């Protein structure tokens, strides 16, 4: 078995294990008010961090490119209460236009 298959299968296994462990934590550990406040913030910090990295990171470098323009348009669309597909497609069109024409 080649190294790449070891990596794929090993990572698949640990990826599933992460999820399954999360689902298997006893509920009574989770019913503390401080934990529930933290838990409500977890999606906000993780999704925000993902947006930051996906928009500005190029491997380990930080760059401002067509993605930033696309995400900016998405934020404007959200501000004007645009539906979700409009948000995503307007960002894609903006980014693609800048990437292809400049």
């Amino acid at each position: 078995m080649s190294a790449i298959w070891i990596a794929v299968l090993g990572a698949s296994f640990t990826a599933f294990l992460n999820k399954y462990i999360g689902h298997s934590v006893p509920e009574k550990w989770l019913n503390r008010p401080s934990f529930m406040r933290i838990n409500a913030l977890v999606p906000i910090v993780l999704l925000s961090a993902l947006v930051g990295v996906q928009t500005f990171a190029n491997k380990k470098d930080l760059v401002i490119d067509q993605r930033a323009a696309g995400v900016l348009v998405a934020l404007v669309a959200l501000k004007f209460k645009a539906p979700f597909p409009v948000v995503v497609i307007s960002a894609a069109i903006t980014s693609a236009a800048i990437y292809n024409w400049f």
Partner: protein
Amino acid sequence: MGAGGSAVSAIATATLLGFRNALYGLQMAPILKVKGLKRILAAQITIDESTAVATLQENDADRRRGFYVTGIGVFVFWNLFTFLGALGASAIGDPAVWGLDAAVPAAFCGLIWPRLKNKTHFIVSAVAIAWALLLTPITPAGIPIITTVLLAVIFGLKK
């Protein structure tokens, strides 16, 4: 591995990236209340999108529906397009040509937006972005994202 790493470091990085799914599992388990085989299936479709859609709903029935519909949808299309990509990645070429590089963060913006209900949420979101970008040049992949959970702990305990 494309960047020249070993299989072990690839597995470690993937595990770190996926650790947030354990936290999503923590959130979903009390809502789904599933055991055995169903828990295995629920775990498999636990991901950013399914948890995000579920936790935006008003009641548990809608949360469950949101989780399964989104999770199964992501599972099917993720694998379908991975397969198509493996068949003919060169036919699609650079994802940036289609704006896909901006579509993904834009979609995540759409999932964050309804969650930002007060000033603290905005601050937490902004600090998380700044933190992740600060760490990006100096830490291995995955660290900038998963360590923002510390920010959730700090801000969650504060109030």
